[in-house]
């Protein structure tokens, strides 16, 4: 099975890219082997959920907004390589997770540490253009939602790989 999972807070403009994309993907039919989930809650609880589904997913695509100082609107896709996260950083992630922080990176670091991520895990992330409070994404963010949905659709249909182990920018701001 393929897991499609969005992560992020709601009502935070482009920072809500993850849950917004989940909402958008729910608008269309998906094959039975696709599981679409909004995993925008405590990373430890998500780890427990993934433990419950151990072995069920061969592949996962996690998506959300992450600020990395790139050009706003950049949509990046890369395979998750969690070995780069040092144990002390994982511990910091756990401390944040159990005290209420919801974060795509924290979730991936913790889930990787506890060995619950599917063997093929990809990350699709948006460099947010608007960081303020807002019930909707920026016009640029909304366009990226459509582009991300199209990319995910293609991936699911072709079951093709997204990358070669390197971070890849599939769409730049236009």
């Amino acid at each position, binding site marked *: 099975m393929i897991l499609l999972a969005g992560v992020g807070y709601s*009502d935070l403009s482009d920072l809500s890219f993850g849950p917004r994309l989940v909402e958008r993907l729910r608008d269309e039919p998906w094959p039975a082997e696709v599981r679409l989930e909004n995993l925008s809650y*405590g990373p*430890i*609880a998500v780890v*427990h959920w993934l433990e419950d589904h151990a072995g069920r997913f061969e592949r996962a695509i996690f998506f959300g907004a992450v600020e990395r100082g790139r050009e706003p609107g950049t949509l990046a896709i890369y395979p998750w390589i969690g070995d780069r996260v040092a*144990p002390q950083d*994982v*511990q*910091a992630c*756990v*401390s944040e997770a*159990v*005290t*209420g*922080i919801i974060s795509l990176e924290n979730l991936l670091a913790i889930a990787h*540490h506890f060995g619950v991520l599917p063997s093929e895990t990809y990350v699709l992330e948006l460099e947010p253009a608007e960081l*303020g*409070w*807002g*019930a909707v994404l920026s016009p640029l963010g909304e366009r990226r939602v459509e582009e991300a949905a199209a990319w995910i659709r293609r991936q699911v249909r072709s079951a093709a790989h997204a990358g070669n182990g390197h971070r890849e920018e599939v769409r730049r701001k236009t």
Partner: protein
Amino acid sequence: MCFKNLPVEFDEQGRPYLREDVPDPYGMERRPDLEGGEVRTLSRDQIESLLERNGHIRQKNFDPVTRVAGALAFHTVVDLEERKVLESRSVATLFRGYEVIMMGRDPRDALYITSRACGVCGGVHSTCSALATEMAIGAKPPPMGIVLRNLLLAIEYLYDNPLHLFLLAGPDYSESIVRRTNPEVWSRAERTEAPHSGIHGYGTIGEIMRDMNPLTGGLYLETMHMTRVAREAYVLIGGKYPHPQTVVPGGVSATVSISTMNEIYLRIQRFFDFAKRVVAIYDDLCDFFYDVDARYKRVGSMPANLMDPGQWDDPEAYDATYENCNEWGERRWATPGIIVNGEQVTTKLQNINLGIEEFVDHSFYDAWDGRRFATDPAGAPLSPYHPWNKETKPRPQAPNWREKYTWDTAPRWDRMAMDAECTARIWNTAVARKLPENPYIEATGHSLKMLLPEGQMPEMELEWHVPEVWNAFERNRGRAYCVAYTALVALNNWLKGMEFLKEGREATSTRFKIPRWGVRRGVGFWGAGRGWLTHHLVLEDGVCTNYQIITPSSINASPRDPWGTPGAYEQSVLNTPILESSSSEDFQGIDILRTIRSFDPCMPCTTHIHTDQGIITREVNTCACGAEE
């Protein structure tokens, strides 16, 4: 006598009144009598001079303090020769805007908005908000609603307290930390037999410490799993965690059946054995450190001034009125109370409420007039600095140790700095001896006896004793006993809920309307897993015109007050000897960190909200590192 500093006395019927012979009764001129608990602090000029002249006197800033919830920075000046702390300043670096956001809103919004003050204990804010609202509008929940609320919040603490003991503060006592900061303590731990090995299964203290290692330790991992058990029980009533959807004024909107109750019990009972082991582990750890070096008793020490509003209501006593709060308060499963220098001075919620004041002399806020309410709803005198009179007037600025340096205010009770963490709950309950009759928990006046039922392990009686010293270790030990105590409160309420179901008393909420006229006040007296929690509300023509939240960390992390008395973190760090044996170059400040974390800090975060008109609040984040000297 209840109050020593506020000019409030009691008539023959026990009703509080304001002394007439005191001019300007709430003025700042009289220095409070701290009953020997005065804290000697150095002036900024003295500190700066010492820093200039001595290489061994250094600033040590913790920014942020890690393994705590939210944004806390801590500034210290330490003397690495004399091994003592010369200055300490607690800095809340984020503005908490809930009071501002609530202005002009329907009080029902408060359930959901204020819940977001915390990502761990949203349920207690929802509940406190519901209590404040139901008091203001006169909505008394049905007994089953009260029992379910009790059960929900007991379960929340079964998530919260273990989390602190093994994931947040716990690593401070793990092999990985102790070996680095105090190798001599680690060596001794490796060869010291654990007195309670028969209960927790660890042969030596070193084995306990090894299993407390973050990420890999068995206790760390087991506790992560137990958070799941607690969450599963919680959502059976709350619908979701951490922000429940079913807590409402007048009860809870969820209904339960026998099978729901059984599902809940299956999870609560797993904490009986867990609690036996947690208590045995922390008893062994605390006693071990005292044996290694008696000076550990001074780590995090301060006068035993503790405050707690009590919680978990008696379903037959609670009527949601302020007028009867003394009566229903004293029938709670956790007795409200104030302890000053180790002695309980009141268990009456009205007195507890009258003694609360908030000061902003060293906080990033402007002062307020505070003359709106001269009395509480029962006619007793109220300070202009009381939350019902307070206005939140944020004034962002650069931190300055001489003036304002934090977003936290300085809440005081009877003008004394207090400790509001969760051991205050069992301490007040133990000495008050007012617990409802039950088969599992007994308050003896000097201890709390707890009978934990058989699980995989046999039935076991635990006894928490009022400690001889009040310090970081006793805070953690008390929190460990709180796990057992809370599990038994949950069990008692579960049994009561089953009784109500059998009797057909299944109603869980009361219909209510928000009156659209008049001025009404309410206060939610409750608690969080970490300790104290109150929400004070003023409703005017159906909307909130004042909303004030005091959390345990508001009290514990508070800055100096108008008379220069430091808050609980600041005091207890000043009293902490530096016992860390690592070199000056590798100085970690572990004794200071153990002290701060022993309070289980939770700094409520900033928040923002969006309306059709645009953004009405903004993010304010103040860095403590650049404070002006």
